[in-house]
């Protein structure tokens, strides 16, 4: 009995179904390969291309010769105004951009899911939590983000150092201002799930609320959370690059793609490629993440699956 069950599982589990449907979405598959390529470029690239992205020639004469070089074999994307290798900086910047997107998304999803499950499951705090969500939705987020980063940048950088401090501040700020959609979606799902028979069954054999949530509710809200998470990465990368573009992002020796673009704008007339490369990288990443989110939404929806 167990053997056949294992065999059927091997043929196609629930995730196999999702994968089969996902593969039919051409845009999403292309996007997955594109994002995979970009991830390899950022994560494995520095192991192959071993130039320090922050290396500045200490000899002034040499440094001046190294500045603003065009593409060559030694520097395929040229060098910047301080003679730093642009290819290495692009890889390094991509790492941080992707890290910011992922961690900020995790923060937002964690807050959003917690608020959503609490509001959906416990009627007593539902009103309060949803008013809080509405309040956050009514806040002008971009101006507030700018204010938050401007105000706390120096303080946090003083405690945790400029790199870790800025990273944590920006990630927390983005996460704190982008959890509302996830909370609303999750609350809606939980409200519907709570009335289903399996939850009633679990409750009638005396399962405590905490375990009903972790065992029965959470696995069932996984699909909307996954979709929200994917789209959240894209939104977080965009927000971070907007902050960098407005000059309130990462320090220049710890650049993201947004910061590289911001640095390139001053000399856009003479060296347009310094704006185009990071801009292209941001756009492609966000575009593929959005396409993957779209494909995931279709794949996780059992009503569409099988068509």
């Amino acid at each position, binding site marked *: 009995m167990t053997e056949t069950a294992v065999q059927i599982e091997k043929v196609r589990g629930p995730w196999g179904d999702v994968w089969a449907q996902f593969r039919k979405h051409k*845009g999403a598959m292309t996007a997955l390969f594109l994002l995979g390529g970009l991830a390899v470029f950022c994560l494995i690239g520095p192991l192959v291309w071993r130039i320090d992205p922050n290396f500045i020639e200490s000899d002034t004469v040499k440094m001046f010769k190294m500045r603003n070089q065009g593409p060559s074999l030694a520097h395929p994307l040229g060098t910047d105004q301080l003679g730093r290798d642009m290819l290495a900086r692009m890889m390094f910047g991509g790492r941080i951009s992707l890290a910011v997107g992922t961690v900020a998304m995790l923060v937002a999803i964690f807050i959003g899911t917690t608020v959503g499950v609490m509001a959906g499951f416990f009627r007593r705090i539902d009103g309060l939590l949803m008013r809080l969500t*509405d*309040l956050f*939705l*009514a*806040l*002008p*987020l*971009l*101006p*507030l983000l*700018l*204010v*938050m980063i*401007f*105000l*706390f940048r*120096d*303080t946090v950088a003083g405690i945790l150092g400029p790199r870790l401090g800025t990273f944590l501040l920006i990630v927390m700020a983005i996460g704190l201002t982008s959890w509302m959609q996830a909370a609303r979606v999750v609350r809606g799902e939980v409200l519907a799930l709570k009335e289903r028979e399996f939850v009633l069954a679990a409750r009638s054999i005396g399962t405590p609320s905490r375990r009903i949530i972790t065992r029965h509710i959470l696995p069932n809200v996984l699909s909307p959370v996954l979709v929200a998470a994917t789209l959240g990465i*894209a939104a977080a990368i*965009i927000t971070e*690059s*907007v902050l960098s*573009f*407005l000059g309130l992002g990462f320090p220049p020796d710890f650049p993201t793609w947004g910061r590289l*673009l911001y640095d390139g*704008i001053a000399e*856009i*007339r003479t060296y*347009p490629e310094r*704006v*185009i490369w990071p*801009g*292209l990288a*941001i*756009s492609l990443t*966000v*575009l593929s993440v*959005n*396409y993957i989110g*779209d494909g995931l939404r279709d794949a996780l929806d059992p009503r569409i699956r099988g068509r």
Partner: protein
Amino acid sequence: MLTFTLRRLLTAIPTLLLISLVIFLLVDLAPGSPLSDVPLTVPPDVRQKMLEAMGADQPVMVRYFLWLKQFFWIEPLYGIDALLGTDFAQGAQRIISWQSKVPVFQIIGERLPQTLTVVGTAYLIGVLIALPIGIYSAYRQYSWFDQAGTFFAMAGFSVPTFFTGNLLILIFAVNLGWFPTIYDTNLEVVDWASFTKMLAQMALPVTVLALFNAAEISRYTRSSVLENLGQDYVRTARAKGMGEQKVVLKHVLRNSLIPVVTVVALGLPTVFGGAIVTEQIFKINGIGAALIGAINVSDLPTVQTVTFIFAVLIVMFNLIADILYGILDPRIRYD
């Protein structure tokens, strides 16, 4: 409908008060002092007097309630005075910018027209592009036009505006030299020549913002038209022998535009926020640029007031969207 509107208006008041408190307290935590520009040679007692003159030495709560009173009572009075030439305000203290020592609302009044011209035109054009694309995409679902429209929409909200903006500057302003890179706010439209100049300088920022807005709205239009095309009344209309054009453009369109109208209304305030970036790219001297400038010199009254105005816009347009929905769709009754 009227009771609903009144109820919503009443519930908007505590929301706005809470938001104002959040904004005020957050901004007030600023470590920068309003005197950081003043030379260090100024003696401490003079500094203290300067702080007192600005009202910056008062406790937070005192300043918050003063600001509330100024925002909701004194400034509207000044507004009425300016409109009707009366004297209700009688020289009461206004919200003063620490940076320029000018009333904040005067700064906003100077900056708002630029933002409104650019953002307003862009939003209008965005909607006008988005509607036909959305309708035709839905009508010919899965055609090459629909695929292209989907890609256009995806690219539209994936590619950040600061990248498209700079790309357009690079192509059309630097290489081709068709349009200026910088928006000249002093330009007044008096004759044909200045009008074409105005059009030329508006072209790039409006394109950037319009494309960005069109992307999202065209998606909503498409899904809304798709939903309506499958309805029974469409089949009835076709069965009666009604022309395809009349079915789509009259019956389907009217019904599908209901959710689109609310999306358009909800999107307006966020456009103001998004315009901050566009204003920065094209150096437009608008309200977003004023906010960024104020943040960079810790001009707290300006930051608080401008941010709160953004919040008021969001709450107001949420309300408008709800009311519009109720008016346009007779199936929806709030009472």
